[in-house]
């Protein structure tokens, strides 16, 4: 376990470092000097001079890289071109709506996906199985922002059950998390179903049945536990996909989260904020993936040796 831990942590750290180096390089490849880009469209000569000083842009490249890394690793991405406030302050104000949305959506996706997958495997070829599988293939083929619009239309505009824009009450979270979770629930359902079918045909399940164990015990104690192992891999990727998807869903529902901040900053050409959001999200995803992988290795010892 220790070598695995060591290897996995090193991988995460190098990935994040490599990412930072790539970001650093890209900002120097695109046309325009980095200082002008970071200072924004309405910068004065003084602003640009200050930036050059702060980020050592008059120094040789390798010194620039070190200054960049040391500042970014301390969470200092400079100031927003638009609001002139530190990028980190901007980001902190946007964390909550995104976290709420992503956590709620992962809960919905996992619970719905698992239940649907198990039911559909246990009642294979039944009408219910067919229905679940139809919804699952529709779920992965449907753009989440379109589902969001449809839900807004039905539950917001026509029925008036839920508010369609903004944040604040738990009711504001219902439609966004459903639109974000649908595709992931579909993926989990498909994976759970095929894993369950695989496990249900194993000898030990037949043995358990022939011992006269109740079907419920066979399915939940013997089959599901083992079927969960491959499903966990999929759930591991869930966080990453939900964070990506939240960008779109936040735009539809006008939620003031990280994704909204990112998209708005791109259209305002606010590079320091774009860079900050990208790095923060990437680090968050890398850390969550690390934790999930370690948990995975703890549950299934075989993983440690691959």
């Amino acid at each position, binding site marked *: 376990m220790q070598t695995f831990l060591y290897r996995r942590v090193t*991988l995460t750290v190098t*990935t994040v470092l490599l990412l930072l180096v790539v970001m650093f390089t890209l900002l120097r490849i*695109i046309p325009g000097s980095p200082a002008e880009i970071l200072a924004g469209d309405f910068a004065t000569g003084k602003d640009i001079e200050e930036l050059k000083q702060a980020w050592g842009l008059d120094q040789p490249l390798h010194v620039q890289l070190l200054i960049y890394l040391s500042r970014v690793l301390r969470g200092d991405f400079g100031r927003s071109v638009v609001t002139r406030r530190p990028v980190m302050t901007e980001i902190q104000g946007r964390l909550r709506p995104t976290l709420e949305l992503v956590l709620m959506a992962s809960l919905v996706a996992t619970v719905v996906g698992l239940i649907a997958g198990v039911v559909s495997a246990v009642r294979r070829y039944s009408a219910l199985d067919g229905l679940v599988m139809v919804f699952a293939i529709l779920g992965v083929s449907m*753009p989440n922002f379109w589902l969001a*619009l449809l839900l807004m*239309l039905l539950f917001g505009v026509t029925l008036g059950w839920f508010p369609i824009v903004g944040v604040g009450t738990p009711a504001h979270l219902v439609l966004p998390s459903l639109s974000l979770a649908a595709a992931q629930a579909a993926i989990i359902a498909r994976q759970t179903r095929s894993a369950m079918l695989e496990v249900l045909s194993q000898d030990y399940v037949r043995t358990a049945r022939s011992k006269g164990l109740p079907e419920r015990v066979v399915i939940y104690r013997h089959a599901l536990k083992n079927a969960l192992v491959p499903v966990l891999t999929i759930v591991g990727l869930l966080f990453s996909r939900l964070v990506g998807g939240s*960008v779109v869903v936040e735009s539809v529902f006008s939620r003031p989260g990280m994704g909204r901040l*990112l998209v708005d900053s*791109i259209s305002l050409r606010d590079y320091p904020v774009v860079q900050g959001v*990208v790095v923060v999200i990437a680090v968050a995803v890398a850390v969550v993936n690390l934790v999930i992988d370690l948990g995975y290795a703890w549950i299934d010892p075989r993983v440690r040796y691959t």
Partner: protein
Amino acid sequence: MGEYRVWLRFKRNRPGLVGGLLLLLVAVAAITAPWLTPHSPTEANLVRAFGPPSKHHSLGTDELGRDLLSRLLYGGRVSLTMGIVSLGISLTVGTALGAMGAYCGGRLDNLIGRLMDMLLAFPPLLLAIAIISLAGPGLTNAMIAVGVVQIPVFARLIRGQILILKEQEFVIAARATGATDLNMLVVHLLPNCLSPLIVQSTFVFATAILSAAMLGFLGLGAQPPSPEWGAMLSKARGYLRVAPALSILPGLAIMMSVLSLNLLGDALRDALDPKLGAVRRQV
């Protein structure tokens, strides 16, 4: 496996056939758009804005009085083109990188592997957005971004396949008869990766259309007045109460295209090799 047996197996898969027909329908509609509708997809006429379905405009008109049916049909051209170009980028670059890594091994393989790990560590949509934030919004950059995101999928697939193939007797025999490196790759190794490549390409095509639509919706992909489905939905959101059809139909078009490819991909996987285990890099 013979092509005929693959076809026999595919033919029995009803969802797969439905997917194939649906894809054909979308493609034919997109290609023959100028003959199917007399209206221009971009010509605005504010007098006719939000027109209901009529004899002239069978699906009505949008907020600028443009014919909705024309926009949907021409939108198919944009979406399919974006999907094909992105797929082309990820397929060629990914295959080349994967083949190079597996074939040369050593440091190069390590470097490519690490780069691919980095790309995979990112949420796919976010990576595309990050690329566009640097390159600037627009149709071309969106296609490139979507293509780049999917490169690791092909690189991993080809690398894995070639590593297995390299140990097979026919490859060792070819090596013994003095085949050159290029010859080995083109004649012996890559053709044997064809089945998984076809299946994977179908899924990547679907994902590319979906991602391109998302970028269009965020205003980072195709720009107005292009009749791109995602961009259309982004505009329609403001008229949800007045003209719900504008929010429903373009999404339906996206879903039909993506669904057809997903059904086709599932069926092809089952027909070509059920144990193939293609991966999806879903957005």
